């Protein structure tokens, strides 16, 4: 499998071409670009937790409705936490 950024670039190219399977209208693509640019310009990224910060704890349900507690996981070793938007 190609590396992640190459695959993302290919996806972006296909989406923004306006062609099938996505058939995204040009106006929609411009709207998405505007939103990303505004979010960038807001400076929100710089406020996010960063290296050296204490990580917030969490206790959340997994896909099988089992509660998962970050403190318990950390007792076993380092933890990689990734935030993603969703299935869509």
């Amino acid at each position, binding site marked *: 499998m190609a590396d992640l*950024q190459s695959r993302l670039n290919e996806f972006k190219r296909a989406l923004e071409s306006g062609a099938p399977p996505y058939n995204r209208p040009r106006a929609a693509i411009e709207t998405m670009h505007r939103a990303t640019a505004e979010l960038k310009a807001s400076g929100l990224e710089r406020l996010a937790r960063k290296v050296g910060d204490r990580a917030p704890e*969490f206790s959340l349900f997994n896909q099988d409705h089992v509660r998962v507690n970050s403190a318990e996981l950390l*007792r076993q*070793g380092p*933890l990689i*936490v990734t*935030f993603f938007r969703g299935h869509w």
Partner: protein
Amino acid sequence: MMELEALQQIDSEVRGLGAQIVALTPELERYTRNVHKKLNLTFDVLTDLHLRTAEQFRLAFVLPDYLRDLYKSFGITLDRFHDEAEYRLPMPARYVIDGEGVVRAAEVNADYTIRPEPSEIVKVLKALKA
């Protein structure tokens, strides 16, 4: 989704280094269940209900009205996916947290089309062990 597939590829190596991956999304469990099954994930996908954890990591943002309307027109009904009226998302982000609970690597990007390679995680974990 692509990011989850990429993380799946390094999951066994991560476990070999004594670490674990978890993926957080604001989506309800009926969606995380499907994603987990569809991608054959061996790590957990957690429902960050009402973005409470994303808020604590300071990643949550409200979509502007024009973007909310566009998403709705695509059938991306975040109010249903997240069980909240407001359309909010976390900025895509990836953290490596050490056993003491301290952030040792952080990758946050407001542009969801730019993500670091998962191999970077492996490097950080190896450095933590060294």
